[in-house]
């Protein structure tokens, strides 16, 4: 059934998300783009994959380009992130959180927040890669670590790294590897949630 009167769109997303989805900024189009660092997170099998390349000048992000396989909020959040960090100092860019990006987008539906905002992780991976290529220590890493298990002092970064290295895929494995949640057990639920997010993110 069709009508020629036209109709207004009614989406679950904000105008800002819509705008970035329809006109995404800074997409990588040049196959020979000379990057100083490159990061890739997610997997196509999980429904979201993101690649970020950066050029660095004077410890600042001089330019950023990206590619994304994913839903509207994945595309819009990567696009927004790329606008936010251009010209930003590496350290500041490294601290960028999914909340920062989501806020700029005017919010995202609850179920979209965790699975589709991967831009900050891809960017961090690109900065990691840049520092590695330069043979530099990563001075930012410790700043963004957050303690998940207070009893054993296990951080979100530790969990992320273990997932990244395919060392853990279940809560039990995480517990035997780090001792997380083996004392008071208060953090188990949160840790399991986080574990699943990282598994999703890294396509494990």
């Amino acid at each position, binding site marked *: 059934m069709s009508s020629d009167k036209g109709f207004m769109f009614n989406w679950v997303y904000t105008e800002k998300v819509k705008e970035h989805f329809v006109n995404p900024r800074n997409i990588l189009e040049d196959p020979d783009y000379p990057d100083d660092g490159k990061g890739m997170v997610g997997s196509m099998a999980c429904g979201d994959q993101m690649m970020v390349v950066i050029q660095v000048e004077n410890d600042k992000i001089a330019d950023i380009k990206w*590619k994304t396989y994913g839903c509207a909020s994945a595309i819009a959040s990567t696009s927004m992130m790329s606008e936010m960090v251009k010209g930003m100092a590496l350290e500041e860019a490294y601290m960028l959180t999914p909340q920062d990006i989501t806020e700029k987008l005017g919010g995202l539906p609850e179920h979209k927040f965790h699975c589709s905002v991967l831009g900050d992780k891809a960017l961090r991976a690109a900065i990691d890669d840049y520092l590695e290529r330069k043979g530099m220590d990563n001075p930012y890493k410790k700043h963004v670590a957050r303690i998940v298990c207070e009893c054993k002092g296990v951080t979100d970064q530790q969990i992320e790294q273990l997932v990244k290295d395919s060392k853990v895929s279940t809560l039990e494995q995480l517990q035997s590897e780090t001792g997380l949640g083996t004392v008071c057990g208060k953090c188990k639920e949160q840790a399991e949630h986080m574990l699943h997010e990282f598994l999703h993110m890294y396509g494990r």
Partner: protein
Amino acid sequence: MAKKLVYMDNNATTPVDPEVAKTTMESLEFYGNPSSMHTMGREAHDRIEKARFLTASLVHARPHEMIFTGCGSESNNAVINLLFSEELQKSRRRKFISSVIEHPSIHELDSMLKRRGIDVVRVPVDKEGLVDMEAYAQALDDSTALVSIMTANNEIGTIQDIESLTSLAHDHGALMHTDAVQAAGKIEIDVRKTKVDYMSLSGHKLYAPKGIGALYIRSGAPFSPFLLGGHQESGRRAGTYNTTGIISMGAAAEIALKHLDEEIKRIGGLRDALEEGIRERISDIRVNGHPEHRVPGTANISFLGAEGESILLYLDMEGVQVSTGSACATGSLEPSYVLMETGIGAELSHGSIRFSLGRFTTAEEVDYVLDVLPPIIERLRRMSTL
């Protein structure tokens, strides 16, 4: 603002046929309670019985074998409820068999059934969505109480061989239910031929308004009312008759039966043209479902390297209304279980779009989709990490 609105989501729900809508409006006059003995009550009652005859005729059932419900899901739930009837409890048959691609109103009852002591077996399907007959035959035994397998699948449109499935179930003394919500009015259905014991139907997939369903209960088949506390539907479903819904469904069934052959050809032709056009214009695609045993209006297509929700929303901007099996559209991290069960893999499932054509789809609309779709896929693939 889109210039044009193209509705290609008829498997989700259909628009109300203007002819049906006329009947719907007229039915509002018959507000007397069909259970009342006065003239107004009797008038409403007569209209309902006429609608019952028309609805039953669509599937070659007898009128008293058809009861009206609130929706297809209620019909399905009512049949599952049989497993807890005195009759079946006494028979010591505790097994329930269904397929892995059933509608959620069957699929999601599994854990409840298991908790209540039912032995649940889900039979796998092949790559085209057909039930694995060998596994089915193996699952069937003399402890099987009930089998429920859908006639046609909502996502991929694959049509099962209900006649053979029923015959095998009956060989073991099991009762057979089929959810024909996605098949009624789209393909020829004859309960006398397939010999099913129960069949679910829904009005809003048949160009009637939402909020009306029906359930075929073979004359002589056991039944245990799901909704209790009223004499309506000969004690098989309590609750004041939904006069407007029932009359509308009857009108919809009459139109569907009258135009069935012609619609199978016309809608099937449009679907084939859409698929052919997409194949010609876009590389790296996969048509899901069975190439032949498929309802005429359903085209489920996976686009490699383009994610379903993004395709859906870019199509929406062109006014084209479709569905996707991508996880991102469901709010979970898992893509469509139907597509996953056919074994095409997560990547192709995330990139799947269901175009479901219907009575009001035109050749111009198919051409329009063929114009706007290729640039969308190309654009998404260009920005994709693929």
